[in-house]
């Protein structure tokens, strides 16, 4: 049961973290009315993942291996695009808020509910199908034992609780520290997701280099231990990544961190080298574009 618990925990952690931070941000900046799109996005991702997973488990169709990995890879890269956009959008809002007197938060940046919903959907849905397949498998096994599904659900619930605790902690700290810490944390998480996405594409054969390993610490590192679970769940840490994974991780992390922490008087930064330029999302439909 513990192994299944760890998998449930691992699968849920990243989504819980991203959604927790997003919710904390909206609550802190007095935009509680924007919470609904997030929950809709989360609910949608869960429903679609479970539905699709059920079809694949109980039906007579299956996804080819290449399709599965390609889907996972593309979703991961999309997720990084959205999370990167979210990080820099939070930062833009932070700067405009700092210039407000008396803490009145009248930001000129209008954020479309669709952008929030999609970010939440992708954060949850990225690993959603894999998690759903895992859950349905465990449900199928209840014929022999309920332990797998109980373990899995407890793991997911633990992830939700952790996400909630992170939300509570994030809401409690002051605004400036909130942006700094959550922004940096999300950048590290996103780097892991991007590396993982590239690994998926390598497995699908779309990108080469699957067997070119950068390092291998599996002799002492156990991926299905509690520490392995936490490191994989939050940072997508792999004990034997490919060279491309490591390169991608640094190639995303370094410029993005640099741009994020660059002085407050700089002009609006372009998003980090993520494949999906998120700038379009805010520019396209906002009511009053902010000149920051």
């Amino acid at each position: 049961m513990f192994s299944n618990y760890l998998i449930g925990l691992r699968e849920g952690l990243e989504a819980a973290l991203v959604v927790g931070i997003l919710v904390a941000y909206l609550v802190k900046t007095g935009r509680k009315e924007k919470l609904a799109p997030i929950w809709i996005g989360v609910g949608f991702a869960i429903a679609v993942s479970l539905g699709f997973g059920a079809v694949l488990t109980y039906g007579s169709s299956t996804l080819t291996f290449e399709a599965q990995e390609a889907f996972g890879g593309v979703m991961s890269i999309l997720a990084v695009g959205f999370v990167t956009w979210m990080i820099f959008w939070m930062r833009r809002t932070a700067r405009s808020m700092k210039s407000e007197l008396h803490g009145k938060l009248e930001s000129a940046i209008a954020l479309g509910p669709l952008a929030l919903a999609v970010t939440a959907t992708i954060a949850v849905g990225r690993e959603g199908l894999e998690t759903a397949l895992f859950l349905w498998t465990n449900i199928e096994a209840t014929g022999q034992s309920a332990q797998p599904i109980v373990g899995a659900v407890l793991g997911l619930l633990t992830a939700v609780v952790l996400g909630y605790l992170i939300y509570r902690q994030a809401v409690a700290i002051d605004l400036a520290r909130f942006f700094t810490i959550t922004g940096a944390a999300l950048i590290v998480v996103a780097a892991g997701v991007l590396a993982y996405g590239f690994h998926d594409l390598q497995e699908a054969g779309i990108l080469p280099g699957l067997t070119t390993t950068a390092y291998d610490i599996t002799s002492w590192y156990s991926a299905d231990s509690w520490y392995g679970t936490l490191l994989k769940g939050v940072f997508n840490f792999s004990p034997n990544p490919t060279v491309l994974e490591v390169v991608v991780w640094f190639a995303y992390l370094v410029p993005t961190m640099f741009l994020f922490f660059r002085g407050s008087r700089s002009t609006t930064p372009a998003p980090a080298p993520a494949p999906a330029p998120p700038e379009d999302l805010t520019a396209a439909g906002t009511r009053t574009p902010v000149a920051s």
Partner: protein
Amino acid sequence: MRTSLPLRAAAGALLLVAVAAGCSSKADDADKVAVTATETACEVATTDLAPGSTTFSVTNDGDQVTEVYVYGEGDRIEGEVENVGPGTSRDLTVDLDEGTYEVACKPGMTGDGIRTEITVGS
């Protein structure tokens, strides 16, 4: 943020087409090849298979989470199932041409795995 409705509809349709293109059929229960994964073994019920689509029914009888891969030449991944918890079963469908392959069970989802050779031929 306003993305046009036609654009969103097109993206959704494209995704559906991509998924549909990636679909293939599973074998009937009677035709599935049982793979039993334990701490120390990776037993494949039938190691001589016909070319084409084969569905392996993987059962984890060990107490660690396992993953099962079907490797082709040069460790090329033909198919895989991950996150197979102890006491659960998962199906793995692959499309194999003639040749020799290896079914690898990896308890603890690490390492090269316990490998069993299979032959696909007419």
